[in-house]
């Protein structure tokens, strides 16, 4: 019962977060110089033409009115139409969601598959060995290289020597898996570098901390072999901070996806949102941001629940 209440409270908070994000984005976009009507009409425009457009899309109404009507429509599941293409926004986003989901999934999976084992190995290695030095180096380099720098470098390198990989030329996975992967490997790697570094570092620190705990000494004193100590005690206890950081990574990833999709011209939600922002296609940007914040908020809640599953102390506290 308490648990349900807790979850309800968390969900309330999550919705509130999404609402505030929407409001902030709404205000920020309207503060950008040049509204939709200015951009769509180009340099040669008349007062009348502008009036027609603002009226057509209800842009002449007061800002609170506009926001409220958008909100009410969204709550009814209606995200409106793109002012540029006149196609329902939901359809536009759904069509592009596949590429973005694939991109972020590849990045997260790569980051976890590389970062976790390296982090555990670096955490378990003796302080003098090269494994730990190597881990520290990768961690520091990866975490301090911005996505766009790495992306630009990769775009340059691979447009000179292709090595079978392509920059741009995206095809949906189910049409041509091979061509799809050739186009996705570079953007996904770019996105994953930061994640690898972040997860490697966190895992290493976390493992190092756990290794000094009394229950590890206890297991060693009972003559348990190192592999089973790692399996039974280290991984579980070290996983908590890693889960938190993985969610933070996912939040950053959505921002990174926008940049990487632009750089590698991957036709995903990120690129779409960017173009919508340039065109002042308000409804599209609003909806995309709502989607992004929804994903982040959901991830945070999932981590919260995972925490409680791993650590009984949190469960106990929550049920009190």
């Amino acid at each position, binding site marked *: 019962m308490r648990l349900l209440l807790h979850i309800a409270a968390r969900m309330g908070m999550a919705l509130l977060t999404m609402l505030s994000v929407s409001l902030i984005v709404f205000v920020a976009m309207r503060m950008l110089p040049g509204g939709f009507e200015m951009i769509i009409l180009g340099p040669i425009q008349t007062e009348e033409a502008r009036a027609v457009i603002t009226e057509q899309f209800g842009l002449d109404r007061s800002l609170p009115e506009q926001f409220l009507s958008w909100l009410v429509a969204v709550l009814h599941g209606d995200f409106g139409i793109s002012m540029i293409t006149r196609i329902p926004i939901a359809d536009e986003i759904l069509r592009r969601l596949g590429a973005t989901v694939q991109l972020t999934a590849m990045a997260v999976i790569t980051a976890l598959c590389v970062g976790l084992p390296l982090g555990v190995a670096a955490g378990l290695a*003796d*302080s003098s060995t090269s494994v730990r030095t190597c881990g520290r180096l990768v961690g520091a380099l990866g975490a301090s290289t911005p996505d766009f720098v790495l992306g630009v470098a990769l775009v340059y390198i691979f447009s000179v020597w292709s090595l079978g990989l392509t920059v741009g030329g995206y095809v949906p996975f189910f049409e041509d898996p091979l061509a799809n992967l050739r186009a996705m490997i570079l953007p996904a790697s770019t996105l994953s570098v930061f994640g690898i570094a972040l997860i490697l570092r966190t895992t290493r620190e976390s493992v190092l901390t756990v290794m000094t*705990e*009394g*229950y590890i*000494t*206890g297991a*060693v*004193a*009972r*003559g*348990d*072999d190192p592999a089973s100590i790692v399996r*039974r*005690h280290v991984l*579980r*206890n070290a996983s908590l901070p890693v889960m938190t950081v993985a969610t933070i990574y996912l939040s950053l990833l959505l921002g990174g996806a926008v940049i990487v999709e632009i750089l590698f011209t991957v036709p995903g939600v990120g690129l779409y949102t960017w173009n919508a922002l340039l065109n002042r296609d308000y409804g599209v940007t609003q909806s995309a941001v709502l989607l992004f914040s929804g994903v982040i908020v959901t991830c945070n809640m999932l981590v919260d629940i995972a925490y409680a599953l*791993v*650590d*009984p*102390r949190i469960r*106990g506290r929550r049920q009190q």
Partner: protein
Amino acid sequence: MNAIVRARDLAVDYTMPGGVVRALDGASFELLPGRSLGLVGESGSGKSTLGLAIGRLLPANVRHAAGDLEVDGRSVFALDDEGIRALRRTSLGFVFQSPMAALDPTMRIGRQITLACGGQPDVGRVPELLQQVGLPKGAARAWPHELSGGMAQRAVIAMAIARRPRLLVADEPTAALDTSLRAQILDLLVALKNETGSALVLLSHELPVVARVCEIIGVMYGGRVVELGDSAGVFSRPLHPYSRALLATAHDGARPGERLAPIPGMPPVLSGPASGCSFAPRCAFADERCRSERPPLRPIGGRLAACHHADGTAPERGSGMSSGM
């Protein structure tokens, strides 16, 4: 009968960026199977280092400088990694100071005891262990954070005896507990020792406590065992001047409302082998020989003591210090 544990002139250094600390400086003792030994000494005298050395559990910055330590006739320093693990599994059980830290917070007590038994214990072994250490059956379902300190230490003890060790090493097992619980836990350890026939090494800085529960007392100072003998004897008629001083502070501390009379001076922090008796700077009877010649641990009056003057050259009973015992 062969000793279950025997240290011979064991010397151990901690190497640190700032230099070397000699934590054990030629410590010697031996213990027969089934007996209980209490090692007492001030903070820094090397008790924990000696306790950890029994299971070769010393941290990575430790250097085994000299001497040897045997468990069940096998030198722990000569064994390979699997050998020492096997020895820990079959012959040794450890109980450390902080019971809460010793339990994995993400695992139920029953599961941890099961693992301590070797993974697949007989049905009924876990409840049997719980009962032996005085925990209710339901404790198996509990998480560590749901236990009190005393219960947690009982769970840790259950894990330590799970594989019926021949030697139980307990390093200040009550230091983190409420004073009211201390006697219970110590009595439990002794009861289990008697019940299972294992030997017990209890490390503590409280001489009276150790004298009450252990058959043999070893007094440690400056990384050495300076006096070793049966409890009643050491407690009533300590031979080594340091033992006498330790006993005196213990008596003072026992009187309520009065301040402890500490031994004047500081315990040594050695960086290499001491040239003479390391207690000499604090000893009222010290002379030139004490400062220049290491006193060996030698038999005196049915006991062992490492003091040049312990055989009667110095007053045998320190001016009424041990009166009343």
